[in-house]
C-alpha cells in the first residue's frame, strides 16, 4: 500500500509551493537577498542589497560586521557537564528519490548532500573515535544498506563516491529505511547509543505498511531518530523525531544545511534508560615485521601492525574489533580524544564597548593579535550586543574581546572559535 503524507506545512512565505515556477519569470518580488529565506522560495540573489555605506561612505565596517556575524553564529554551545553517550551507533539514511535531483540547493540537492555527508562522516569519526556508523539509501520504494556499522571512515566515503550510489530515482520509502536501520541496530550492545539520522528530500513516502507501527517499535528499542528535511516540514517526520526524542530541522540554504547536519556530530546527552556497563577493551602494541605479513582484517601485506593482546592476531589499524576474537581494540589516545566531550571549555563572554577599560590588555591573550580601538564616533554605530541580528542593515562591530569566565583572560573572535571548535583547551586556564 502506498500512502501520501499530509501536505507540508507552509512556512511564513508569501507564496505557495506551486507558484514558484510561474513566478520565476516575473521577478518583481525580490527577496531573500540575505540568503536567510528558504532556498526554494528564492528567485534572485541580490547580495549587493545588504551592503550599505556608512556615513563616511565606506564599506569596510559593513563587510567586517558581516564576517563577524557569520563567525559568531556557531559560537554558543552547550557547556554543561552532562552525561553523554560517547559510544554511538548511528545509521545515516540518505533519501535518493527523484526529489533529490531538484536544483534548489547549489549545485543540486544530491551533490550538496553527498558533499556534506562526506564531510559529516570525517568529522563524526574525528569527534567520536569510539563510535560506529553505517549508511542506508532509499530509492524506488526500497531501502538498501550501503555499508555495515563500522568504525572506518574510508569505507563509508568510498561507498558514497560510487557513481551508482549517487543516482536519484523513484520514490523513497521512509518506513523501509527505518526498519532496515532498526533491525541492524538491534544487536548493538546496550551501553552504546542507537541513532538514526535521516536526510530526507521528498515530501512523500511509499511504504508497505503503517509507519506508526514502526515508530512504536523504534520507541520501544530506544532508537533516537533525527531528521534533516530538504524541502518543507512534513508532519510524519516531525512526529517520529518528537516521539523518539530526536531533532527535526528543515534546511534554509546550503550553509544552514551544513549547520544543522553538523549539530548531530557532538554526542547526544545520554538518556536515562541506557544501561552503563564496563566494556572489555584491548590495548594492542605496535609491532614492526622484518618480512611483510598478512593482516587479519583486510588480508593485505603490512610491515607495521597492531597485535591483539588476547589472540595475537595482527590488524592493520585501530580502532576496530579484532576479527578473530572480536575484542574491541583501541589505544589510549583514542580514549583521550573523547575526553573533551566530558570536560568542555566554557563559553567566552563578549565584552561590549561599554565594558572596555583602558587598563585592559591591548592584544589577544593567546595569539597576540591587537584588539582594535573603540570607533571614533559611537553614535552612528549601534553598540554590539549578543542578540543583535543585523537583518541586512549595517550594524556596529563589537569590541572583538571575549573573556573566559574562569581565568578572565581576553581572546579575539578567531581564538574563541578555534579554542572551542578545535583545541578544546582554554589557553588561559591551562596556564595556571
Amino acid at each position, binding site marked *: 500500500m502506498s500512502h501520501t503524507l499530509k501536505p507540508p506545512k507552509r512556512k511564513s512565505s508569501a507564496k505557495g509551493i506551486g507558484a514558484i515556477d510561474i513566478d520565476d519569470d516575473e521577478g518583481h518580488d525580490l527577496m531573500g537577498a540575505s540568503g536567510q529565506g528558504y532556498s526554494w522560495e528564492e528567485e534572485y540573489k541580490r547580495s549587493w542589497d545588504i551592503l550599505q555605506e556608512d556615513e563616511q561612505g565606506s564599506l569596510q565596517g559593513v563587510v567586517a560586521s558581516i564576517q563577524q556575524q557569520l563567525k559568531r553564529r556557531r559560537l554558543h554551545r552547550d557547556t554543561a557537564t552532562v552525561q553523554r553517550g*560517547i559510544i554511538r551507533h548511528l545509521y545515516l539514511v540518505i533519501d535518493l528519490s527523484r526529489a533529490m535531483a531538484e536544483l534548489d540547493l547549489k549545485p543540486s540537492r544530491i551533490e550538496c548532500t553527498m558533499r556534506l555527508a562526506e564531510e559529516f562522516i570525517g568529522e563524526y569519526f574525528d569527534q567520536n573515535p569510539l563510535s560506529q556508523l553505517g549508511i542506508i539509501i532509499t530509492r524506488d520504494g526500497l531501502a538498501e544498506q550501503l555499508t555495515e556499522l563500522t568504525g572506518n571512515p574510508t569505507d563509508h566515503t568510498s561507498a558514497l563516491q560510487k557513481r551508482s550510489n549517487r543516482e536519484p530515482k523513484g520514490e523513497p520509502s521512509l518506513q523501509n529505511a527505518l526498519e532496515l536501520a532498526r533491525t541492524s541496530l538491534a544487536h548493538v550492545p546496550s*551501553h552504546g547509543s542507537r541513532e538514526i539520522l535521516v536526510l530526507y528530500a521528498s515530501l512523500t513516502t511509499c511504504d508497505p505498511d503503517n509507519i506508526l507501527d514502526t515508530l512504536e517499535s523504534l520507541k520501544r528499542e530506544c532508537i533516537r531518530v533525527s531528521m534533516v528535511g530538504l524541502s518543507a516540514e512534513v508532519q510524519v517526520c516531525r512526529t517520529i523525531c518528537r516521539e523518539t526524542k530526536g531533532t527535526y530541522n528543515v534546511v534554509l540554504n546550503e550553509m544552514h544545511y551544513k549547520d544543522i547536519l553538523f549539530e548531530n556530530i557532538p554526542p547526544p546527552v545520554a538518556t536515562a534508560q541506557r544501561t552503563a556497563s*564496563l*566494556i572489555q577493551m584491548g590495548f594492542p602494541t605496535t609491532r614492526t615485521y622484518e618480512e611483510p605479513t598478512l593482516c587479519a582484517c583486510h588480508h593485505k601485506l603490512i610491515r607495521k601492525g597492531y597485535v591483539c593482546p588476547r589472540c595475537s592476531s595482527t590488524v592493520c589499524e585501530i580502532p576496530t574489533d579484532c576479527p578473530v576474537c572480536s575484542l574491541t581494540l583501541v589505544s589510549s589516545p583514542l580514549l583521550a*580524544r573523547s575526553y573533551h566531550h566530558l570536560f568542555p571549555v566554557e563559553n567566552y563572554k563578549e565584552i561590549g564597548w561599554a565594558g572596555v577599560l583602558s587598563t585592559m590588555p591591548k592584544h589577544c591573550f593567546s595569539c*597576540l593579535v591587537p584588539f582594535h580601538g573603540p570607533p571614533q564616533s559611537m553614535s552612528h554605530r549601534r553598540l554590539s550586543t549578543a542578540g543583535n541580528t543585523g537583518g541586512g542593515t549595517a550594524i556596529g562591530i563589537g569590541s572583538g574581546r571575549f573573556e573566559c569566565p574562569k581565568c578572565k583572560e581576553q581572546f579575539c573572535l578567531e581564538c574563541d572559535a*578555534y579554542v572551542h571548535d578545535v583545541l*578544546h583547551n582554554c589557553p588561559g586556564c591551562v596556564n595556571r
Partner: protein
Amino acid sequence: MTSEESINLLAVVIDTNPIAWATAAQDSRCPLDFGRVLEQLLIFINAHLALRFDNELVVIASHTNQSLFLYPPQLSDTDQPPDASSKPANTYKQFFDVNQAVIKTLKDLITESKSPEDVDDKSMLAGSLSLAQTYINRIRRANDPTPLQSRILILSVSPDLPSQYVATMNCIFAAQRVGTRIDVCRFRGKHYGEESVFLPQACHLTGGLYMEIPEAENLLQYLLYAFLPDPYMRSVLCLPEKDQVDFRAACFCHKTVVDVGYVCSVCLSIFCSVSKQCPTCQTQFGGQ
C-alpha cells in the same frame, strides 16, 4: 603543493623550569648549561630565518606558573625600541631583533620569578602548546589562501605532569588536525630528565621527530641536521626514529599498565578488573 609555495612557521617552546635546569646543571658527567643551550638555540633560530625571507617564527617560554611569548615581543611593552645606532652594523636586522627580544624577555622572566621556595617543579607545557596552536592558527588565517607549513619544536627537560594529560592530548589532536608537526628535543642524562610518556606520543601522532640529546654540547648539530629541514626534506633524510611508542593505558585503580582493560562506557575510565560501580563517576553498571 610543493614546499616552495608555502610559508614556513616554526614555533619553539623552551622549557624554562628553573628547578629542572638546576638539577641538570649539577649532573656530574656532562652538566647541562642553560646559557650554552640558549646560544645554540639562537643560532638555530637564525638559521631558520635565514633559509627564506618569509619564514615565520614564534618563541614561547614554558615557565613554572605561566607561559610567555618571547618572540614576537608583546605589544604591552611600553619601553622604546632600541634606536638604530645601537644596532651593530654587521648584523642582519632580523637576527638582531629576535636575539634581543628572546634574551631580554627571558631575563625579565627570570628576574621576576619568585624565590626558590615558592617555585613548584612543573612546567606549563600544555599551556605553551595551546598558545603556540592559537598563534599558528592566526598566522594560517592571515596568510590564507597561501598554505602554511607549521611545526612546533619543544626543548624539554622537566618531567611530565599527569594533571596536564588531557590538555596536552587536546593540543596534540588539534595539531594533528591541521597538520602541524610536533618535534621534541629532550635533554636526558643519567641523573636528570625522566623518560617522558606524553612527548613521544605527541611526535608519533603528528609525524614529528623525537630525539633525546645525551650531550648538550653537541646540541647545535642535532638542531641543524635533524630539526631544521622542512617536512619535505625530511622524507629524503635518514633520521633516527623512536622505534616503539607505547600506547597502552594505565588503569585508574592501581596505575598498572594493562593489555586488556575494562572501560566505563560513561566516563571512559580504565580499570583492570570488573566492579559493580564505577569509582570515577559512581555509575551503577547494569547487566553484562
